[in-house]
């Protein structure tokens, strides 16, 4: 679905641009290629890491570590897993539910989901290149802390 939307938009945009100015269109495509090629080595490395981690980490092992009684240790593991891994949402949410049904705690799952989305250890070097180290550390550090606050609220409201 997304794929058609994105490529459709890009093709429509290029076509529109081409009718307006050939030269500007060429310029735009050159810029697009340059910034893509510039970041490609980092992307490729990250994707290789994601592929390996998704292949080697099993859901049942995850649920064992994140049980409702796992307490702070479980929260810590959930935060670490969420921060380090880069699981796409369409896998993460079914996984989160499966893990909940296997007996994981709501706080642990909430911390996992929150850090998964907001904290990116693997992409941190890339983020530091686009911004700087301090900004990257501030954003990821605060997001990590805040994920615990969100989990606390969620446990009160949902649990």
């Amino acid at each position, binding site marked *: 679905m*997304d*794929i058609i939307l*994105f*490529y459709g938009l*890009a093709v429509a*945009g*290029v076509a529109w*641009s081409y009718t307006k100015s050939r030269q*500007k*269109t060429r*310029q*735009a*495509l050159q*810029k*697009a290629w340059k*910034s*893509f090629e510039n*970041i490609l*080595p980092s*992307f490729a*490395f990250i*994707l*290789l*890491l*994601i*592929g*390996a981690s*998704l*292949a*080697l980490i099993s859901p049942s092992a995850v649920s064992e570590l994140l049980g409702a009684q796992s307490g702070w240790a479980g929260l810590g593991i959930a935060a670490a897993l969420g921060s380090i891994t*880069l699981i*796409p*949402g*369409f896998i993460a*949410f*079914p996984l*989160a*539910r499966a893990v*909940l049904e296997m007996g994981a705690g709501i706080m642990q*799952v909430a911390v996992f*989901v*929150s850090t998964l*989305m*907001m904290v*990116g250890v693997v992409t941190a070097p*890339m983020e530091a290149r*686009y*911004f*700087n180290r*301090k*900004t990257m550390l*501030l*954003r990821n550090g*605060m*997001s990590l802390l*805040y994920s615990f*606050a*969100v989990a606390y609220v*969620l446990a009160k*409201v949902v649990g």
Partner: protein
Amino acid sequence: MTVLMRYKWVILALAADFAVFAWNPVWGRQIAFQTTNSFVEMLSFLPPVFIILGLLDVWVPREVVISHLGRGSGLRGMTLAIFLGAAAAGPLYGAFPVAAVMMKKGASLYNVMLFLGAWSTLKIPMFLFETQYLGLTFSVTRWICSLVGIVVMAFLIDRWVPEKEKQEIYNKHQ
């Protein structure tokens, strides 16, 4: 040679994958499968995103971005930044190149951080998916908490990064 140097981490990771494959072909095949999937996911949205960014870069005048998302764009700028992030799709790493073009065109760091925060955790398609799997109470509560959080964090980052460093960040994208 320089190309090889640029891709040294990629080559290293590939070598590690092949080593795993040689040691345990079942794991190796799983890695190959998952890696292919993540590359397909990337290729399904990233190239068109870069093309759209290239077009925006060429066609959208700096003044327009500054007036809508620059310093002093106020509540309207904040709302727009959050909306742009929430309407997006794709993993967080896709947001960085977009943020780069926003900065190049003069959006304020505060609004860029709001955009990044919204992209990371407020995405509408993700929210629907989350509701389906974890329930409406869970997803709505998390969405509201996250909204508050990203506004506070963007505010703090904007305050804690000194003017000089902001200038250095913006200079990277000129």
